[in-house]
Structures are given as structure tokens and as C-alpha cells.
């Protein structure tokens, strides 16, 4: 019925997102690499960086809202997207990245920068990057991590319960009572599956909400410069995994992604 056009819309939603990510990344890199303008006060630069961060968050938000709208019509593809590489799909947690992955990325970037700049740091040279997370920032991030792990756990067990439900009533009963005509369309089964998909839409919404919440909180903990650094790194990571995944698909003879 509407399936082919659904697929087209879902696919293009993702393609637009990837294009948006690329565009945002080059803007972020541009700001990071631009030499500090001597006329520009540091406060003005900070305002500028903060606006850039806010813009990126708005883009995330817009993408999330758009795909939820599409998911309300047809949710399953978002849990196993045909527009992503098989490798990306193997990484999915409820239709996207694990929110705690963001924390790990902060630690990795912090570590990378601190190890390479330790000598300079001890000499008192400061660059304001992620290696310089303050005690308070680290504490807030640790706290955020704890809460996010808990929330992830809660959602994971909700989805586990939904998945188990497929083996339970009413579908199990319907299938068991019908002799062999279960291959035929069955209104009751469809009804049960529709209900299941509705629940999955809620799961996707909740997962997206947690991803957004984690990102926003993190952006508030980081300084604007650190936040810009982080966003650039996260987009590089996403685009890299997407590109590598597609290459792997081609290597293994899977085509048409």
C-alpha cells in the first residue's frame, strides 16, 4: 500500500540527516580551526561557540522529531534500518546510539588530550580543551553517567519484556489454535502486532528522549569550546562508522545500500 513511499520517506529522512551531519561538521571544524580573531573578545567568541552548539542540538532535535513522526506510521524499520549498513545496525540500541556512548567518548577525548599535553599542562599551559575537565565537570559527568546507565537499563528491560511478549498471549494462543492457516492473513494477529508496534514507537520515543537529554546535559556541563570539540568528534565518529560500514557491506558482496 503506502509501503514503498514510506520507505522512500524514511530513507530520505536519514540521507538528509547524514548530509546535515556533514554540513554541521565542516562548520564546527571551521570554527575550531579559525584563529582567534584579535578584535573579538573571548566573551564574544564564547557566545558564538555556544550558539553553534545550540544550533547543533536543534538539528538533533529536528531529526529526532521527524523520524518519530515517520515511525508512528511504520516503526519497525527504525529498529533495523535498511538505510544503514549492517555493521551500523549491529551497534544500534533502540534505534540509535547508546546514550552512555557519549560519556565514553568524552573520556576518550579527555584522555587523548591529557596524555599528549601532560608536560605542558604541568607547566601551566592551558588550552581549554576536553583534557582540562575540571573536578566539578568530572563529577557532573560521573553523575550523569550513573543516571544514564540506570535509564538505559530501565528501557532495555522494557524492550526485553515487549520482545518476550511475542511468545505469549494473545499471539501464541491464536497461532496454536489455528491448524495451519496461520500463513493466511489473520485479523487478530495483525491487531496484536499493531499493538506491539505501538509499544515500540513509545520505546523509540523514550530512547530518543534519553539520547537528547544526555546530549543536552553534557553540552551544559562542557564549556562551549569543549562542547564544540565534542560535537565535531562525535560527528566524525558517526560519519566514519557509516562510511566504513558501507565499505564492509560492499566487501562482503552486499549491495544497494
Amino acid at each position, binding site marked *: 500500500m503506502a509501503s514503498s513511499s514510506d520507505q522512500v520517506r524514511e530513507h530520505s529522512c536519514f540521507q538528509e540527516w547524514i548530509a546535515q551531519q556533514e554540513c554541521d561538521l565542516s562548520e564546527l571544524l571551521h570554527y575550531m580551526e579559525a584563529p582567534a580573531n584579535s578584535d573579538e573578545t*573571548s*566573551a564574544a*567568541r*564564547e557566545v558564538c561557540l555556544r550558539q553553534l552548539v545550540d544550533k547543533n542540538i536543534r538539528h538533533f532535535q529536528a531529526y529526532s522529531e521527524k523520524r518519530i513522526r515517520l515511525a508512528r506510521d511504520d516503526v519497525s524499520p527504525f529498529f533495523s534500518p535498511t538505510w544503514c549498513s549492517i555493521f551500523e545496525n549491529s551497534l544500534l540500541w533502540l534505534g540509535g546510539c547508546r546514550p*552512555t556512548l557519549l560519556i*565514553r567518548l568524552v*573520556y576518550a577525548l*579527555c*584522555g*587523548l588530550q*591529557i*596524555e599528549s599535553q*601532560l*608536560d605542558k*599542562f*604541568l*607547566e*601551566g*599551559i*592551558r*588550552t*581549554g*580543551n576536553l*583534557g*582540562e*575537565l*575540571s*573536578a*566539578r*565537570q*568530572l*563529577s*557532573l*559527568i*560521573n*553523575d*550523569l*553517567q*550513573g*543516571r544514564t*546507565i*540506570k535509564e538505559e537499563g530501565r528501557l532495555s528491560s522494557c524492550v526485553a519484556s515487549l520482545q518476550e511478549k511475542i511468545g505469549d498471549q494473545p499471539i501464541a494462543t491464536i497461532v496454536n489454535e489455528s491448524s495451519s492457516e496461520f500463513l493466511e492473513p489473520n485479523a487478530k494477529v495483525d491487531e496484536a502486532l499493531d499493538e506491539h508496534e505501538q509499544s515500540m514507537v513509545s520505546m523509540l520515543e523514550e530512547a530518543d528522549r534519553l539520547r537528547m537529554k544526555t546530549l543536552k*546535559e553534557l553540552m*551544559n*556541563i*562542557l*564549556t562551549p*569550546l*569543549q562542547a564544540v570539540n565534542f560535537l565535531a568528534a562525535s560527528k566524525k565518529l558517526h560519519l566514519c562508522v557509516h562510511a566504513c560500514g558501507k565499505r564492509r557491506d560492499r566487501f562482503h558482496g552486499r549491495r544497494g545500500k
Partner: protein
Amino acid sequence: MAGMCYGVNMGETETSTPVEPSSKSARRRRMEIHQFNFVPNDSAVAPPPLPKKKRQRIETVVDPVPPPPRSCGVEGNVLTTVPEEEDEGSTTTTFDLSATTSNDVVPTERPKFGMTSVCGRRRDMEDSVAIHPSFCDSRSGLHFFGVYDGHGCSHVATKCKDRMHEIVRDEYGTGELSWEHTMNQSFSKMDKEVTDWPRGANGGAASSSCRCELQTPHCDAVGSTAVVAVVTPEKIVVSNCGDSRAVLCRNGVAIPLSVDHKPDRPDELNRIQDAGGRVIFWDGPRVLGVLAMSRAIGDNYLKPYVIPEPEVTITDRTVEDECLILASDGLWDVVSNETACGVARMCLQSRRPPSPPRSPGSDVNVTDAGESSDRACSDAAILLTKLALARHSTDNVSVVVVDLRRGQ
């Protein structure tokens, strides 16, 4: 190594270096920082602290960390509490000691310290840290520092955090002369408490927000390391059980004040075998192939091979002492004693230079000149923690840095 003999009573220990697989030590050596280019006392010393503009914003956006349970000059230094424990309520105890401290007319030497404790790359937080300045009374100048790294679940480490300093205080109050005896008794009582706890009439059921929910038999397989330092005006008393570690930084030299209890440490191996136990290599040496340390609080099911008896070292303080570092193996697995001391002492020696205006978030806690040393300890603790994360520590990381310099 010479430092090991410096007024240190190593108890029954006969070897002084923990045995370490050569490949691991080689890896550690590779990971050492080759050189510090820091020049002490250069022109960068003691600049004015930066005005803090950013902090308020951060505070309004995110829930602030609960304040530390102490009153004496630790604001902003106590960094992190275990996330799971925050709702528990039981860990934010109020101590009768703090009242006496704050009302004291002539405070004794105020300890300066910094602390960081993070979950890091693990999904469960099982480390706990306890810091109690003037934990016996306000005049004796005895300060308590403890790091507990739990395994199996978090509740034994949490219990140690809540109770160990009280037990030590009570033991000390009995007038027992020897610190060694006091600490031995304290660890033994601590162990008894955690062992009896789940079976007790009012069990842990009410306060068990931990993973295992104190269900037997699982909770028999839970334990914790404990490294406790009591710092007196004259001495540093370190009691250790397990593989957390205390290291003294004295005139730039790293002096371990505890020796990790690893099952393959020759004397520990003998003790375990004499008791009828075995050490089996299963992802490293483990008691009965299970536990990768030979002493711990708790772990009832591994007794008598795994014992709660601490090794106690008593070290006379000297004017050359710079700082004491207590940390869980999340730090020591990836940062050597020497590197840790090097980093900590540089942080203590260098007053914070002004940061460029773009990094306000890196500079949030400085209050007044009186706390700048606490700030330095805090800087040291956080830098060591970040270094551990940088070197891919996969464990929880807890670090306490205590300033031992006189007359600062």
C-alpha cells in the same frame, strides 16, 4: 626501595615488591611519562586565581553534587559520590564529629586533601571513599582516609565507607597502645559486621539498593579491598587489605606504604596453601580460581584463604614528606607509583597559573587563599584520575591525595 625501611614496619611481609608479570611491567614502563619539563618556582608560580564566571551557569543547569558531609574546608574537593548510593540516603550520614570541629576554638592541623571517585568505563560503581578529618576528637589531630574497592557488589565497600572510621575510633578509644593492634581489631570487626549484616534481624533489606539486594548465597561472594590511612601529627598509619594502595611521596621519591595482596605474592601464596587453599591461574592468579586478591573484607565463602587481616605500616612523618596518595587499582593498574607521585607533587608545587579566558570551566573551585592547597590536592587527584582514564583504565577510579607538607 631504601625508603621501605624508613621507619616502616611491614608486619609479616618479607618481600617488598609485588610480583608482576614481566610483560605487564614492561607495558607499564612504556606507558611512563618520559620526562617532566616542569621547572619549580619559576615565574608562573602563584598568579591570582581567575574570576569565575561560568560556574553559576553550570550549577543552574545540572543538579549539584550533594555537599560533602564535612565542614572543614573541603567544599568543592569532595568530588563524587556513587550514583547508586545517592538515592539511598544511608551514605550521607551526619557525623557528631563535625560539630566539634567547627566549634573548636583552636583547630589542630587542618588536613588538606583532594578526592576523586568516578565510575569510569565500567557500568557498575563499586568503589567507595571515606574521608574524616579529626575523626577521633578535634584535638588529637588524627585524620582518617579510606579507599574501598568492592567486588561482586557494592554493598561491602559502602558499609566500609560508612562504618570503618567509627570502628577505628572506638577501638582507638579503648586505649590500646599499639596502632597495629587497633587496626587489626578494627578490620576484624569490620569484616564481622559485613558478614553478619545480611543475616541480621533487620538485615540490609531496607537499605539494599545494591545489585545483589543482599540475597544469600550471592552476597557471601561479595567483598572489598580496604586501604586506610590514619594521619597523626607524627605518623602515617596505613592498614591494607587487598590491592588498593597507599603511596607516600617523600622528596620526590615514591614510597609504597602498602604492598598489594595478590595471590601470587610468595608469602601470600604460602599462607593460602598452608591453609589448604589453592591459587589457580584463570585470567591471572586467583584464590581458588575466583578472587584476584588474597585478602579482603567480606568474601565469606573464601575464608580462611582470603582473610581480612590487614598489613599495617607505621611511618614517621618527616619534613620531606609531600603527599600521600591512596587509590584503587583503577589507578594503579595503569599509572606507576613514580608517575603518580611525579604528577601529584607537580600539582602541589605549582600554584595554578591563569588559564586562558576560553576555559572557565576548568577553574571552578578556587575560593580564597586559605584553600589553595586543598585546591592543589584536588587538582592532583583529578589529574591522576584523568590520566587513568587516558590510559584506558577499565575499572572504577578512586584517588585521594593528602598534603603532608608542614606549615603550608
